[in-house]
Structure formats: C-alpha cells, structure tokens
C-alpha cells in the first residue's frame, strides 16, 4: 500500500552536509503492522515525518519516492497532500500533551478532522466523536468531549489522540513512540487497542519505537534502523529469533528480562 523507495534526507550542518536517512526502502502492506526500530538519532522519526512531508525546512529530501496507492507523495502538490494528511494517513505522537492544542476541547479537535475530511453535519459529528471515543475504550465520552487536554490523564490523552487519528477512517497510521511515555500497565492496554483497531478498521500501522519488546508483541514485520540505514528487515518472529545484524542483537539483549 505504501512503498518507500530509496528515501534520502540530508541536512546542512555548517559547511558540511549530513545524511540523516540514507536510501531507505520500506514497504508497508495492507492491514500490516510494521515496526521501525532504532536508537535515538537513527532517523526513524525523520522517516516517519517524511511520509507526510512534515519535515522542518532545513531537512531536504534529496532523492527517493514514497508511493501511496499509486501516488508519489513526494511529488504531489501541497493542496492534494492536505487531503491525504489526517484522512488517508494520520499520525499518533509520543507526547499527546504537546500534540493537542491546549485551548480547544477534545471534541473540538476531533471535530476539526471530521469537518475537514467528511461531509457530516454538526449533529452527526457529535455522535461520531462519541462513537470514536467509545471505540478507543473511553468509558464516559460525553465528559471527555468537554474536557481540555490538560484535564485528562496520560493514558486518556493517548486514547483521545488515537481517536483523532482514526476519525476519518485512515488506511495508515504512523505511530511515533505511542507508548513510551506511559507506564507499563497502560502501555499494555494501548497495544491491545492498536491490535483490535487493526482488525476492526482494516488499517496498517507504521510503529516507530526503540523498544524491540513492543515490536515483538505488536508488529508483523520489523525494520531495524541504524544511522539512517535499514540494517535488517524481515518478519518479526524471524528477525527476533535469529537476529543477524550486531545492532539488532544489541537491541535484543537490552530488552531481555
């Protein structure tokens, strides 16, 4: 469904040019969960942001193609891209407190997605928001709707953000460290939520994380990234049971209990 081909991203560093992402190839099939794993600074988040062309202006995509359902996202005009962002491809960020706008309520922010991407009326939107919050396991959606982001707990905020991400029935969710800020019991619940959403909504997930343990329990395929390159890729079980690259082995080592 999504096919990243030879993606290269560079940044000017004084007189030098630094390569952040060096020729990354990454296919994501339909209804697949693909884990993109690496340490901090490996270029995994940059790759994720490049898909929706959300990179800051200093970072230049120098070559490569990102093919999404036959369309090259890197070549398509900004106007068309706006119709894809949030609709066909949406994002879940690590820190929902920063990702949400603090001065709007949850329902206003989820409503904005619906207003822009669907033809629902005001009343239908309200129903849909409550339905969405229900889907992500929020028990009292009516109250949460009226709340501002800071009034919710960390786990609730993350759920609300996932609700926003699935609002317009996307085909792909890019989840960047979606559980790294949550404690272990909440993390487990969010993982289960992702799993059930994939089955119910038939979507694909690109899971960006440094935690191989998380990937082991959620992803079908895994790509290990180090210094801007993908060093190992394959079916999750195969890679984790028999890691061939030294960096993958090191990552495996530290998450062992």
């Amino acid at each position, binding site marked *: 469904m999504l096919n990243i081909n030879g993606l290269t991203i560079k940044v000017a560093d004084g007189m030098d040019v630094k390569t952040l992402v060096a020729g990354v190839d990454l296919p994501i099939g339909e209804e697949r969960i693909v884990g993109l794993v690496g340490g*901090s600074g490996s270029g995994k988040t940059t790759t994720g942001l490049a898909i929706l062309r959300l990179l800051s202006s200093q970072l230049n995509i120098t070559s490569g193609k990102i093919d999404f359902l036959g369309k090259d996202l890197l070549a398509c005009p900004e106007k068309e891209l706006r119709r894809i962002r949030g609709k066909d491809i949406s994002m879940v960020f690590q820190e929902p407190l920063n990702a949400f706008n603090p001065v709007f309520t949850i329902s206003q922010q989820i409503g904005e997605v619906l207003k822009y991407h669907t033809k629902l009326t005001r009343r239908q939107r309200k129903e849909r928001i409550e339905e969405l919050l229900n889907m992500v396991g929020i028990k009292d959606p009516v109250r949460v709707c009226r709340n501002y982001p800071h009034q919710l*707990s960390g786990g609730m905020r993350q759920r609300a953000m996932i609700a926003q991400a699935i609002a317009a029935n996307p085909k792909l969710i890019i989840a960047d460290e979606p559980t790294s800020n949550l*404690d272990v*019991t*909440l993390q487990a619940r969010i993982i*289960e939520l992702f799993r059930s959403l994939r089955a119910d909504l038939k979507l694909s997930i690109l899971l960006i994380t440094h*935690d191989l343990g998380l990937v*082991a329990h959620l992803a079908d395929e895994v790509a290990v990234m180090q210094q801007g390159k993908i060093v190992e890729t394959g079916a999750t079980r195969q890679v984790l049971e028999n890691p061939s690259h030294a960096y993958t082995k090191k990552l495996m080592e530290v998450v062992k*209990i």
Partner: protein
Amino acid sequence: MTLLELQNVRKYFPGPKHFLEETQYVRAVDHVDLTIVEGENLGLVGESGSGKTTLGRLIMKLHKADSGAIILNGKDISKLSDNEFRPLRKNVQMVFQDPYSSLDPRFTVHGLLAEADQLSQEKKDRNARLEKAIQAVGLDISCLKRYPHEFSGGERQRIAIARCLVMNPKLLILDEAVSSLDVLIQEQVLQLLKSLQQQYPVTYLFISHNLRVVRKICHKIAVMYRGKIVELAASDEILRNPLHPYTKELLTAAIDYKSVDKPYNEPIGENSRLIDNGNGHFVIN
C-alpha cells in the same frame, strides 16, 4: 547497617473543595514502613499515581510528612526544620526524570557541579573533585566548559548524576531517571550506575514503573499501590514468584505486554500490614 528507615509515614493531599462538603484526601503515601540497608539498592515500582514519587520527595524533605518518622542515619529528619535539615540534605540526593528541565541552561556544567560542591565542601581541591565526578560518569573533562544544551539526553542524565555525586550522598534517589532515554542509552546509564557504586559509597532508591529496568540494578523491589507497599522481596524472588495480584498484573504488562481482563482495583484495608511469607518475601494481608 540501616541507612534509612520510614516508620508509619503518611502524606495526604487535599482534593478539590466543595461548599459544605468534607474535603476528600488523596492518600499519596498511606502509613508506609520501609527500610533501606546500606549498599542494598531498593527498587520502588508502581503505576503512575501510586505515590512512589511522593515517597521519594518525602525522603528529600521536598514535601513535609503528615505523620510518621523518617530516620536517616539514626536521626529523625521529619521533625527537623528546613534550617536544621539543610546541612544533612547532601546525604540524600535526587536525579529527576527529565534531564532537559532539571539542569539550568544558563550554567556551564562546571557551574552546575560547583554549585553542588560549594554546598557540601570547602573550596580546596574543588576542581579535582569536579573532574573526578565528571570522569566517573564517563564524560570528558572538557565537558565542564560546555552548557547543558550541547548534550544529548543520556549525557545530560550523566551530568545530573555527577552533580549528585560531588556531594558524596549516602542515598541517591533516581526518580524515573532512565525512563525518557531509549533502551540502548538506558542500558549504558544502568551499567554506569552499577560501576559508580565501586567508586562512591552510595545506595540507590530506584523509582520506576519498569520492572525490567529495576531488576537490573536493585537487590530488592517494593511494589507500591494506592499509597501502600503491597509486596516487598528480593528482586529475583519477586519476579519468579509474585504473590500479590497487583504485582502479577505489573509483571504481565512489563514482560508480555498484555493487560489482564480485570485490572486490580481493590482498596487496601486500613489495618493491613506486610506479612512475611518466608525468605524475606513480604506481602500485604
């Protein structure tokens, strides 16, 4: 030798006040007894909101305990005034979760460490002490001249640790100190903490929600739930043989990334006490 002893320590925070209604209290730390022996690292685990951070802050006297005794080196610090406690505070130091907000951006690393050093020791040999501390955490002496923003998260956390070390603390409270770091850097910092104990006579109180991280460095683990310690045992023992349902839930989440169907949500009785189940494995009744 006993380093720190908490006896029946309590800290309640008042909740929102409503007209004519009695104030509801959040029982952050609810009659906790806990002993830390010198050289024996203790891990404090629990969900967010279980009171583990409040407990750490009580030991630092950043909060005042409502009742109970906090005995550090044979002295009850909970009864001391701030002025009386100040000379003793160097014995307990804390490393915070977020290394981006816990280091003053306007100070050089030298300035940050010197400020701590100045509180605890005479000026003589200060530079030598700072150099020793920065090298002990695996950074180069040249780092002393640089500012916090020039460092990565893992390096900043090392600087925060070095800042504590110059004071020669007996107890170092690490409050989610590696949670914001990626797994490889986490591992490095944990290895560093282990090796530091050979150079400095320091004991760790390691506060975290991550059992996997805690077991790597702690001899003992205490599980906290709703302000109470519900289970306490040697690390290997608690991982091999968890007895309390809440501990079991934490373990399933940490190791199998699975949540249980019915999360543990029972109130703990007023008069519950930790009972020894043999082998120093304590569970609340």
